[in-house]
């Protein structure tokens, strides 16, 4: 599997972060982050809570503003220009821990809203695309229901489909399974695995180490706002270098 997935990664740079720093008030959340993501890479970001994992990926689509350093997404430098930010956001899909579906719209409307209003896709076409992706996440029969009528796992799959409808080139996952019952985690992970196999560039903040082993080609470990260690999953899990990583792994894998 590792050899096969290696091949899909190109030399083209999808995201380049150099010397990025962020503060919440006086609190230094992210410190000198350097990260280059190549197209087709599947990166898992792990680390204890409060280590800045979520903040890092939220900076990539400018949900959080960084104060120092440079982020280049798909060749566009992230600046404070609103037009620029909206362009990057429409190219980068994001899946949230709490799904954040729009409760006043049906599943289908959730999926067609952004294509119709941002991409100016005709309604008919947007609906066809939406149904295509809802089939892909295996819930086309729920299209006319409201988010409140679906289970957590189903809602998260809809959220993935909603992002995919914008045909993003990069997908960010912010702890997508943390709010789910154990029985529903698998259905969401299966969807993400399928997505990875198609060669989507993905950055996942997650605690699912099985998923990291199976899908990721690189695992990044963060602590106290810094990247402490990054490696291929085999090396990372079997032969961690830093003491902090060893401690972390022993705590989450030890039981």
């Amino acid at each position, binding site marked *: 599997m590792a050899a096969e997935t290696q091949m899909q990664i190109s030399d083209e740079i999808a995201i380049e972060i150099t010397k990025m720093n962020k503060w919440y008030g006086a609190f230094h959340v992210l410190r000198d982050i350097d990260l280059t993501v190549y197209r087709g890479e599947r990166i898992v970001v792990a680390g204890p809570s409060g280590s800045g994992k979520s903040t890092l990926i939220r900076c990539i689509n400018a949900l959080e503003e960084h104060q120092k350093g440079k982020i280049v997404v798909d060749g566009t430098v992230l600046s404070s220009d609103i037009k620029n930010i909206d362009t990057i956001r*429409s190219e980068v899909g*994001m899946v*949230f821990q*709490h799904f*954040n579906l729009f409760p006043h719209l049906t599943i289908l409307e959730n999926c067609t809203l952004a294509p119709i209003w*941002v991409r100016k896709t005709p309604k008919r076409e947007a609906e066809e695309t939406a149904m295509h992706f809802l089939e892909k996440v295996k819930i086309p029969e729920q299209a006319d229901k*409201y988010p*409140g009528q679906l289970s957590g796992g189903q809602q998260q799959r809809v959220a993935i489909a*909603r992002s995919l409808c*914008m045909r993003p080139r990069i997908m960010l996952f912010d702890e997508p399974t943390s709010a789910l019952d154990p029985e529903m985690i698998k259905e969401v992970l299966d969807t993400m695995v399928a997505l990875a196999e198609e060669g989507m560039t993905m950055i996942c903040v997650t605690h699912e180490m099985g998923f990291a082993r199976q899908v990721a080609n690189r695992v990044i470990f963060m602590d106290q706002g810094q990247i402490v260690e990054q490696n291929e999953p085999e090396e990372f899990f079997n032969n961690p270098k830093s003491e902090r990583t060893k401690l972390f792994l022993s705590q989450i894998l030890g039981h």
Partner: protein
Amino acid sequence: MSRDNLAFVRSHMLPEAPPPVAETGAVKWLRENLFSSVGNTLLTLVSAYVVVRILFGVAPWFFNGIWDSPSLSACREMLDGRTGACFAVLTERWNQLLFGFKYPPDLYWRPTLAFVLLFVAAAPVLFMKYLPRQMLIFTGLYPFIAFWLIWGGSIMVPIFALLGVLLGAFVYWRTLTISAGVAVLAGIVAALVFWWASRLVTAPLGDVLALQPVVSRDLGGFMVNMLLGVVCVSLSLPFGIMLALGRQSRMPIIKWICVVFIEFIRGVPLITLLFVANVVLAYFLPPGTTFDLILRVIIMITMFSSAYIAEVIRGGLAALPRGQYEAADSLGLDYAQSMQLIILPQALKISIPGIVNVAVGLFKDTTLVSIISMFDIVGMIRGPILASTEWNGVYWELFGFACLLFFIVCYGISQYSQWLERELRTDHR
């Protein structure tokens, strides 16, 4: 199961069973709601006694009521010592109660028609889902039609007013690509310039399709309350939304303008604003300017209620989880789109009870204009009707009638809002 044998394997799953058949019907309801304890039984009996006493007191007064009589003294003669109401004042002064005492009687059909058309215009907004979209065109035209019907004058005035609005909307639409703020400003300026210029054209065309003009001073009765209520509620909702969004704005100037406006208006009683509209404003305006009193009152009441509605909507906005804003942002929706499609539909839904509260309060507060010598229904009752020699002393019947009219409208608004809340419910709890 003995202590030694704790293992258990379910061999078959239990099927779903219906709930036990509980006792139902009126007897159960009575026992649960009225006689559930000694204290409640006592309260039930006491309140039943009070209700019966009130009914027996009011019934003869109501049913002995005289509906046809020229004056209170004639009424008393007919009653001949019995208790009874003198509803004749309502029938005799019916038109005055509804239209005021100076509105030309042969023109009563015009406000009546405007009132009937109000339902046609409001229906497509209130029942958006069930009526064809095209009816909204009439809703858009209605303010101009209603203005022409109530105030009369040349049809050119409302037509040019409408054209000005359309021009402003067109300019707004064309400049929207530059920036939303510029577009709003450009639209307003375009409309104002057009209206100013159109006076040159409308003046010589004053006789075209002219209805007999009626000046604002001659409007009166419940018509004024309806007019102020409808106009101010429908204006203060969009202004309230803008103020609420402005208060959340990241641009400090806009934010502070909104904060200062809202806090100032909320700190001032409505009645003082009305006095400002009536008296003080005249000092600031150049002498000779005719700035219509009703227009001034509309502006003041709208300012007042939009500040309150803004605060209600701000509550709705604050109640939305941050994830909704982030999800809208992450999909690449711009500010206007995410507000219009994601945030406001949800925030307004949460705010419905509060908005209705303000709307009902505003409608009832329109009676305050009687204090600045406008003859709305309360002004009519207190002034021309009670002061007349025929009807001096008929308080219960007149104020009861005013209460009834207000109750019908306010209860209607409240029932509609409850229906709307059920209609918009999508969480299926």
